[in-house]
């Protein structure tokens, strides 16, 4: 969820009244926003409201959008009508090279704008917010804004070899070649994260004016020449992109938010963009989408009973343009600012928000079903209770672990273990999914060594690679139990196994062979266990797990001081 910061005094000025923090918090709550924090502004009596905005509402990511949406919600104003001016459009031409790196550009002009320091600041902050969110850190779209009076259209959007691009970038004193510039910005705290977007390409995207002045090197930096200031009157906005749909959304958001400061408010001057194939498209596209909506369907989805007139009023309060066509039908014009409206259900939700979620009469669905447990979980719970009844304390440990937790620490190599591997772990702790519950329990003992003996158990899932499964992997439900004391107490762990087998009605197999009952097979050794103190647990002829005294090397690897016996079995065969 993005959070925006707005000065309280400016916000209340826009809203035409003041609120207590509690009142404003309630207003936010009703609209689906959240007043996250109230932060003091140094050397000022004013404070900054940090407001959390839903991730799909790009139209309220700045003070202008927030106050406009709330004023409309409070019925103090109506949704503005955005228009295009009749001026002959500026032209921008896309050259073919751009198709190899960043194929799209859109643009428009805000004419005769009057900024104040506050509104100019908001203009800069909105670009930042959009870059962080919708633009996915400039990978999908990058915004450039320019003082139009310093540059000469038509503009060229090209992609050139880095050495062919040389200009003075924003706030720099000297010109740099584009390749040097990227190395320079690779050290910049704010811009370094964008460098990799184009660095490895043989051509870099660049926008020139008709005098060969560089406007910007998207998505990294603008030129200093066309730099804007609070005095700028005419603003040229360009958005370069790999996603045209999102470029339009970003452009429209910038324009619809700040066109209110134009001398003709909400009038926008278009730009015509000549595509690489010669086709000309005019931006911005401010056409409103029109939907015909059934009021009955709204009532049905939300569980309310309102007439068409009421529904229209509610929708208008949510910055949609609704008019009544007949007793059941509304025509809803969806403004370009409301890119979050994808489907009828979004319109129905807006109606519910304006109606007030907390005003909806609660009903209980008549759906009648018989509940059922997932059998594996039922058996797990029964075994958990049995282990606790046998005097063992239950632990709850992590599914993710390091490779060494299941391999080196047990004298094994990770290549021989069928673990699923995580591609992008942030720490060593999250390299793989555990293939055994032992390391988690041994770590738990490490933190609780002071009182002995410790009788510990866990019933949880491990993860195994399994090519026969759809995802190439499956969970397996294990029971693991440890006894830790001055002597290993193998007979206690062994006794627990016998007890569990009694409870799941599997008899002891005296013959130690065949497919009946259970027995221990000590014909093999395992590096995790002390020689001569290890056996496989065989249930109905299948190897379901291990039992034995842990090897002193394992004890040492986990930082323990006393001997430990262990049992780990797959309990899925008992379901």
């Amino acid at each position: 969820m993005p959070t925006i910061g707005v000065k309280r005094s400016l916000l209340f000025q826009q809203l035409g009244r003041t609120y207590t923090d509690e009142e404003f918090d309630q207003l936010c709550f009703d609209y689906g926003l959240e007043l996250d924090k109230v932060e003091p502004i140094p050397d000022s009596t004013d404070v900054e409201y940090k407001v959390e905005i839903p991730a799909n509402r790009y139209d309220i990511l700045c003070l202008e959008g927030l106050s406009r949406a709330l004023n409309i919600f409070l019925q103090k104003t109506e949704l503005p009508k955005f228009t295009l001016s009749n001026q002959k459009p500026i032209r921008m031409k896309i050259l073919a090279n751009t198709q190899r790196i960043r194929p799209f550009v859109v643009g428009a002009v805000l004419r005769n704008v009057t900024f104040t320091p506050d509104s100019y600041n908001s203009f800069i902050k909105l670009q930042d917010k959009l870059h962080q969110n919708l633009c996915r850190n400039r990978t999908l779209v990058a915004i450039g804004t320019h003082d139009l009076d310093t540059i000469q259209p038509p503009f060229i959007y090209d992609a050139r070899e880095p050495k062919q691009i040389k200009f003075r970038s924003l706030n720099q004193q000297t010109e740099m070649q584009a390749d040097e510039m990227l190395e320079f910005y690779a050290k910049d705290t704010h811009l370094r994260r964008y460098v990799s977007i184009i660095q490895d390409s043989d051509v870099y995207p660049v926008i020139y004016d008709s005098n060969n002045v560089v406007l910007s090197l998207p998505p990294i930096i603008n030129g200093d020449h066309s730099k804007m200031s609070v005095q700028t009157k005419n603003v040229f906005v360009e958005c370069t992109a790999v996603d045209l749909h999102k470029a339009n959304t970003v452009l429209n958001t910038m324009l619809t938010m700040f066109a209110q400061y134009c001398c003709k408010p909400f009038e926008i001057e278009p730009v015509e963009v000549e595509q690489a194939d010669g086709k000309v498209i005019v931006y911005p596209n401010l056409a409103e989408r029109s939907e015909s909506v059934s009021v009955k369907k709204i009532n049905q989805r939300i569980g309310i009973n309102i007439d068409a007139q009421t529904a229209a009023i509610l929708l208008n309060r949510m910055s949609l343009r609704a008019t009544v066509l007949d007793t059941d039908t509304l025509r809803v014009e969806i403004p370009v600012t409301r890119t979050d409206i994808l489907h009828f259900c979004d319109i129905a939700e807006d109606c519910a928000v304006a109606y007030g979620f907390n005003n909806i009469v609660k009903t209980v669905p008549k759906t009648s079903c018989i509940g059922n447990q997932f059998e594996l979980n039922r058996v797990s719970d029964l075994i958990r209770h049995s282990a606790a009844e046998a005097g063992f304390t239950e632990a709850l440990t992590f599914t993710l672990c390091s490779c060494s937790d299941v391999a080196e620490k047990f004298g094994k190599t990770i290549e021989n273990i069928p673990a699923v591997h995580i591609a992008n772990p942030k720490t060593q702790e999250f390299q793989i999914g555990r293939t055994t519950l032992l390391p988690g329990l041994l770590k738990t003992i490490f933190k609780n060594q002071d009182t002995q003996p410790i009788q510990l158990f866990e019933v949880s899932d491990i993860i195994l690679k399994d090519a026969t499964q759809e995802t190439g992997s499956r969970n397996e439900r294990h029971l693991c139990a440890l006894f830790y004391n001055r002597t290993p107490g193998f007979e206690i762990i062994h006794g627990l196994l016998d007890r569990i087998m009694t409870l799941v009605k599997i008899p002891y197999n005296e013959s130690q062979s065949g497919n009946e009952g259970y027995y221990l097979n000590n014909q093999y050794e395992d590096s995790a266990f002390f020689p001569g103190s290890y056996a496989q647990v065989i249930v109905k002829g299948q190897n379901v797990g291990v039992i034995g005294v842990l090897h002193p090397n394992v004890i040492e690897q986990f930082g323990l001081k006393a001997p430990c016996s262990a049992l780990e079995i797959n309990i899925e065969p008992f379901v």
Partner: protein
Amino acid sequence: MATSKGSTVSGSTTEKSSSLQAEILLYLSTNNELNTWSYAKERGLDHQLVVGTIRSIESLGDVIKSEQHTSRSIGLTDEAKGLLRDGSYEYNIFQAIPADKGIEQPQLMKLPNANIGFAKAMSKGWLQVDKSSKPPMVKRKVDTVQDEVQHLLQRIHSLELTDSSAEEVVELKKRKLVEDVTINYFTVTKSAGFSTNISKPEADLTSEMLQSGSWKTVNFKPKNFHAKGLLPSYGCLHPLLKVRTEYRQIFLEMGFTEMPTNNFVENSFWNFDALFTPQKHPARDVQDTFFLSDPAVTTKFPEEYLQKVKEVHATGAFGSIGYQYDWQLDETQKNVLRTHTTAVSTRMLYQLAQEKTFRPAKYFSIDKVFRNENLDSTHLAEFNQIEGLIADYNLTLGDLIGVLYQFFRKLGMTKLRFKPAYNPYTEPSMEIFSYHEGLQRWIEVGNSGMFRPEMLLPMGFSEDVSVIAWGLSLERPTMILYGINNIRDLVGPEVDLKMCRRNPICRVIPAKSEE
């Protein structure tokens, strides 16, 4: 041995003491008060024995009460005790002289303390010395004498004579036969639980007593109810999973069926795409989701369904304009550790949609999910998600609100409010807040919503089927319930097992049903 545990002290002292106990109690049954000093003197008993016996009676409970007193008196010196027994030195000198003929003086002076005795007897005029013979002869001057000193000592010893200023006493003090003493004695009276029939109580009932019937006559020591008992050896379940059991029970009571969630590895198709989460959504970023390098991809999908999902994303379908982007197959193939159990819900709903005739369903699950997030005191890379959903014809947002009230009422929460929220796969979406009486504020307790048509219609559901769903984490309400601030104190290997072992029964108490 165990049978006589209450009275193991043996030997004559005990017997004397226990018979004295009986005598003292008998005495008290007919007398209002017992003075230990005079009681001992009257019976010729050692005063300390009497006091000790009183003490042991007192230890048996509320039988008698005693009050300590101090008095000044006179008593015999050790030397005087010898005189009391053997007679005064002068008397013994007199007696040593044969009545008829007398005795040679040196012979007489061999008697113990003869010097003092001779001098005293002479001054009393009991003797005469014939110095004419050699050696001198000592003869009786009177026929008989009374041993007055011994008699006096007897009177003092028996407390007949206690006046330290009497003339004869002063004389004895000069002879260092009598001294002033301080006496600590007790006056004893009956107490509320007085009985003449007491004995040292037994500590415990034994099977021998039951068999012999001796329990009927033996007194038992009351149990100590002011100390803690001995803990039994016991195992225990983990506190978080005890809470899980409560939630699970609530869903089962409400008629929900548990979903099989035992697949931590999921592919992006079921975890994201099928839930109408666009491929460039921040949740699908490597910063938020664990992707797998091995096994890296899933290649088997229900093909027809996959095409519909692709269409609804890329170009829009089913009444939706979609996200309008270039949907990539390789992105949907990527395996992840599931970021929510809704991936399983999606699989279950898809299966439900494949059935020939629609049947309403109520599903729930409580299981682990994984997030590649930055870790802090309330965030781990893995946590448990609780999820419930209902699929039926024409369910409304009002139905969702009603079900949430029912569900949270079972958790003891009755004051709820709902905030509009955003979630890619639900619309409307509501955050659920509950007023916490202890914390005196509204706290977020979960998320909910109606699944989007873009999610349900590609599965094959008809338009009039809606699905309402909600979810919450298991750890957060548990931390609030137990007052735990750091999640690592609740789950994982750093947990203090003592905390687990002390943890009480988990009983989530439902609020009373609505009036």
